[in-house]
């Protein structure tokens, strides 16, 4: 089966500083792949390379089996939705307008929305419980609300491959958990879909990921099912944190950080 998205030997440096050092990665249909790693590991750079906005010094990214560099931005946007880390917008766009922008890759030259574009926008708003906020100006929202708007925009885009950069940052406990549950459900609904996300939430990552990728200083140090990647030894080594890693009654991995050991 062709992976939705695949990276081979990605290497990149900003000036003299190497950020990625030969990263291999694969997002297969139906999978939730979670990239974790300490600050400065190159996670965001990796996402930028995977979405094709960063052309890496070496290595190749393929989307549906063909090189992403050969595709137009519009072609890529008709396959990949990116939920960025920062949502600072200096203009008071309304929430409904922000979500409607997800339809951009499918609109004609003057951006005229059809009935079905409007319907997709409305159902995306509803799916993330944003109807009460639909007429609010985006800059007036809280951090967590902004995240939900960006998720809704990706949903309105209606494409199969999602890349998310710390989707639960600045979400409270409930919304963060909801976000992962919602993503898992979205994924299950259609087997052609795939999600790759970057997060610092080891607990949520361990619980929901089909595959974990542990990125440290631009290198993949471990990759595979969560229990094989997140061991107590590795967490101590990479994060400098003593943690308890165990399985709960249902057999799912639970990671509890105990104390910093640096």
């Amino acid at each position: 089966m062709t992976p939705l998205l695949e990276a081979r030997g990605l290497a990149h440096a900003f000036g003299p500083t190497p950020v990625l050092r030969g990263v291999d990665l694969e997002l297969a249909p139906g999978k939730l792949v979670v990239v974790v790693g300490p600050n400065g590991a190159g996670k965001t750079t990796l996402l930028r390379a995977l979405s094709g906005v960063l052309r890496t010094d070496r290595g190749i990214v393929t989307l549906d089996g063909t090189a992403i560099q050969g595709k137009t931005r519009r072609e890529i946007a008709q396959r990949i939705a990116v939920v960025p880390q920062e949502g600072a917008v200096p203009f008071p766009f309304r929430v409904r307008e922000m979500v409607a922008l997800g339809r951009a890759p499918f609109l004609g030259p003057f951006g005229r929305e059809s009935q079905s574009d409007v319907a997709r926008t409305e159902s995306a708003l509803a799916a993330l419980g944003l109807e009460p906020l639909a007429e609010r100006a985006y800059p007036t929202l809280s951090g967590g609300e902004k995240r939900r708007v960006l998720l809704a925009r990706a949903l309105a885009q209606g494409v199969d491959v999602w890349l998310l950069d710390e989707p639960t940052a600045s979400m409270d406990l409930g919304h963060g958990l909801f976000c992962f549950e919602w993503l898992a459900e979205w994924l299950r609904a259609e087997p052609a879909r795939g999600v790759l996300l970057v997060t610092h939430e080891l607990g949520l990552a361990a619980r929901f990921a089909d595959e974990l990728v542990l990125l440290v200083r631009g290198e993949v140090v471990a990759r595979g099912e969560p229990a094989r990647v997140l061991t107590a030894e590795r967490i101590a080594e990479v994060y400098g944190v003593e943690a308890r890693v165990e399985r709960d009654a249902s057999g799912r991995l639970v990671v509890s950080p105990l104390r910093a050991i640096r």
Partner: protein
Amino acid sequence: MIARAPYPRSGVLLGLALALVLVLGLSLCVGSAEHATADIVWGIRLPRALLAALVGAGLATAGALLQALLQNPLADPYVLGISGGAALGGVSALALGGGLWLGGAGVPVIAFAGALGASLLLYAIAADGGRAPAHSLLLTGVVFNAFASSLIVFATSATDLARVAGVFLWLIGSIRLVAPALLWAVFALFAVGLAIALRHAYALNLIAQGDETATHLGVDVPSVRRWVLAGTALMIGASVSVSGLIGFVGLIVPHLLRLTVGSDHRLLIPGAALGGAAFLVLADTLARVVLAPIELPVGALTALVGGPLFLVLLRRELARIPA
């Protein structure tokens, strides 16, 4: 699920068009002549009002475009240095006594050449084929403007005193009667600029979110940036070359519209064109009559009204948006 009509665009644009017609009518009816003859109304007031409309529309549209392109709601048409180039051209021509060159069109033509020169320079230095981020464009523009200002001061100091008044008036900005051919030329340049702007209005909604988000949503950012910069240069060049540096129109009008009709550039751009036209026609009419028979330069009036108005708007906005 409720299917909503996108936005009530036609109503807003119709209202602005109506406002424009009203102020145009007003500008024909008032003036310092006690008994306005048909010659005065159609031969003097109408062309002048039309020029004011074109200049106002050009400045306000360019302001709206640059605000989106630079992702900065406080950008105005003069921020990129295109106007600085025009002013340098215009002032140099005036200082050299070029008021009568090319059948009276010498100053505007040279000013327009200055605007194009500055745009090309900006493009060569900062735009990097459209790839450069917004802030490097902004910085280059600011520095070029400062440089152009110092050259203008230099040119003014070197010229004889009799011509300094003309230079001074030009820098404040004013609407004067121009030859019909020049009026048509301004119209043509504005029309091309507006067409480019409307073609890219939706892409600007995306670019206003940041270059990277726009790219993720399928926009070829460098291409849009190139086109919009070119359209902006045409409109600013055309406006500034006939009227000098009329301030605040390009800042206030798009800003006012953003507060009232929202941020959708498909509405904002035609709205800014109509609103800017109406605003400057009204301002120029007032400039003609408030101290009649003395005429104020309209640039002094727009700055007088625009400055405080802008502070009020800014304050309102700061109160609305949490830090």
